[in-house]
């Protein structure tokens, strides 16, 4: 039994993102408030009411300050619903895309016919909560001055530049494209267009990672609602079907003690998603790829098979804008919309839905039927991502 086309996204909700609450006098909103807000928006978008979710599915994504084992129950309590199927997202930034498959499986198996997938975080408002480093980070990275993910991805980027010959020009082009799309997205946070020169002048933080390579933490909440293909046809908004899906955790290319960090588990996740969907690469008109950093977007384009490895010429000649050859990051990505912890990745699901519905306004990709969204999470010691997931969405089941 395949889940292909058996479930569809019928509601999306995205609160504005902000960075308020860190300074005295700034308004503070808690994770609970962002959760309630995002749920309200998604439920309204789907033309449902909160009552419809009693006895149905609720999928809550663990978030930085709220990782207690009973988080899905606490989210149900915050939202005031009594779910009959409880799912959790434990794949960090990949969770939103992972849960597309898990929710579709629950629906296809008849466990429920609605799933609300939700995440929120308020790292600025709730900064008080201590989050200590642990494990490998505490014992084998911090003593050597590894400054968090900026540093960890700069290792990958340094090797990527060495093997591929990619330069500022290539990374800058992807950064400029993302910001251009953000300038056309009223929900984006950084909306002033930039040039390649601005990218090159942005300051080095963890060389070769520059400021304009990096995602920015934010407060915010996001949610989406899935239902069965049958019920989807009766709903308020045009259904966006899940056609292909794959996830892959703990991938290693080469020995685990010396893995190739330039290939990620998106290679396997993507392959499974393409195989399930039967959709050809040429028919995918929109790539919304997890973007904690610019080079991560580029490596995923290679992982997904849209070009060869280290294909400099491809990155030079391809128009990645919404009206171009291969539109990517049409929302502006998390880099320009902000990353509320593990909620951030849901941006890429929501944007693909908007594009396929034809709701993307000034950045609408013309004639789009299919799009792909990815998520990644956990940057592991001496490797790249521990969690990966990919999903192909489309307007026809």
């Amino acid at each position, binding site marked *: 039994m395949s889940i292909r086309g058996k479930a569809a996204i019928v509601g999306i909700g995205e609160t504005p993102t902000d960075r308020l609450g860190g300074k005295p006098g700034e308004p503070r909103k808690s994770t609970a408030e962002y959760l309630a807000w995002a749920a309200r928006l998604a439920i309204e978008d789907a033309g449902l009411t909160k009552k419809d979710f009693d006895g149905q599915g609720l999928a809550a994504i663990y978030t930085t300050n709220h990782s207690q084992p009973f988080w899905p129950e606490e989210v149900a309590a915050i939202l005031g619903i009594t779910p009959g199927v409880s799912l959790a997202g434990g794949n960090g930034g990949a969770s939103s895309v992972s849960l597309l498959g898990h929710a579709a499986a629950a629906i296809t198996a008849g466990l429920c016919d609605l799933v609300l997938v939700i995440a929120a975080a308020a790292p600025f408002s709730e900064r008080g909560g201590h989050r200590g*480093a642990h*494990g*490998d980070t*505490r*014992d*084998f*990275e*911090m*003593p*050597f*001055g*590894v*400054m*968090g993910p*900026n*540093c960890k991805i*700069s*290792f*990958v980027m*340094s*090797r990527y530049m*060495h093997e591929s010959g990619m330069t500022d020009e290539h990374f800058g082009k992807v950064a400029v494209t993302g910001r251009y799309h953000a300038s056309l997205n009223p929900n984006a946070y950084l909306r002033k267009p930039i040039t390649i020169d601005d990218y090159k002048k942005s*300051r*080095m*933080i*963890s*060389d*070769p*990672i520059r400021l304009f390579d990096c995602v920015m933490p934010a407060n915010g909440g996001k949610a989406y609602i899935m239902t069965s293909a049958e019920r989807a046809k009766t709903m308020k908004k045009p259904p966006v079907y899940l056609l292909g899906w794959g996830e892959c955790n703990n991938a290693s290319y080469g*020995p*685990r*003690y*010396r893995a190739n*960090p330039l290939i990620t588990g998106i290679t396997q996740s993507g392959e499974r998603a393409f195989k399930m969907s039967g959709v050809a690469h040429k028919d995918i008109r929109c790539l919304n790829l997890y973007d904690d950093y610019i080079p991560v977007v580029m490596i995923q384009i290679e992982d997904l098979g849209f070009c060869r490895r280290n294909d400099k010429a491809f990155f030079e000649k391809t128009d990645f804008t919404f009206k171009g050859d291969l539109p990517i990051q049409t929302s502006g990505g998390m880099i320009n919309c902000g990353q509320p912890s593990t909620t951030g990745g849901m941006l890429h699901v929501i944007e693909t839905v908007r594009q396929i519905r034809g709701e993307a306004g000034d950045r609408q990709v013309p004639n789009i039927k299919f799009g792909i969204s990815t998520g990644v999470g956990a940057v592991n*010691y*001496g490797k790249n991502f521990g969690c990966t997931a990919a999903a192909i969405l489309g307007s026809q089941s």
Partner: protein
Amino acid sequence: MAEEKVAKKPLPDVTPVNQPFWDGAKASKLMMQKCTNCSTWVFPPRPVCGDCASEKLDWVQVSGTGKVFCFTIIREVVGTALRGFAPDIPYVTAWVDLDDGPRLCSNVIGCPVEQVKIDMPVVTVFEDSGDGITLPKFKPA
């Protein structure tokens, strides 16, 4: 809470699992875990092998020579946990692939940051933190 005058650098928690690594470093030896069941290297230290899940892990001394696989030049302190590194900026943190062992993350010291290159041969130097922990770092071979 009053700010400490000189911010300290974070040090590892020495645990039963990783203790042989840190004891080795104190004795100027680079010790690594190897699985006796499947012969793979295991690093960072683990109670079970990450490949075959065997608990039969040995500690062996490695030569301490290797090559820089990739590196970053840290030019800015991000956050507060690592503000003790501020006086060292700019400094190099690298993944070093050992000639006879696994990959590890450490600093390349003993040369200007501009001289560090990918594939550069390096050798271990043991640096006493002054707080009971010796850190294995690397210098150009």
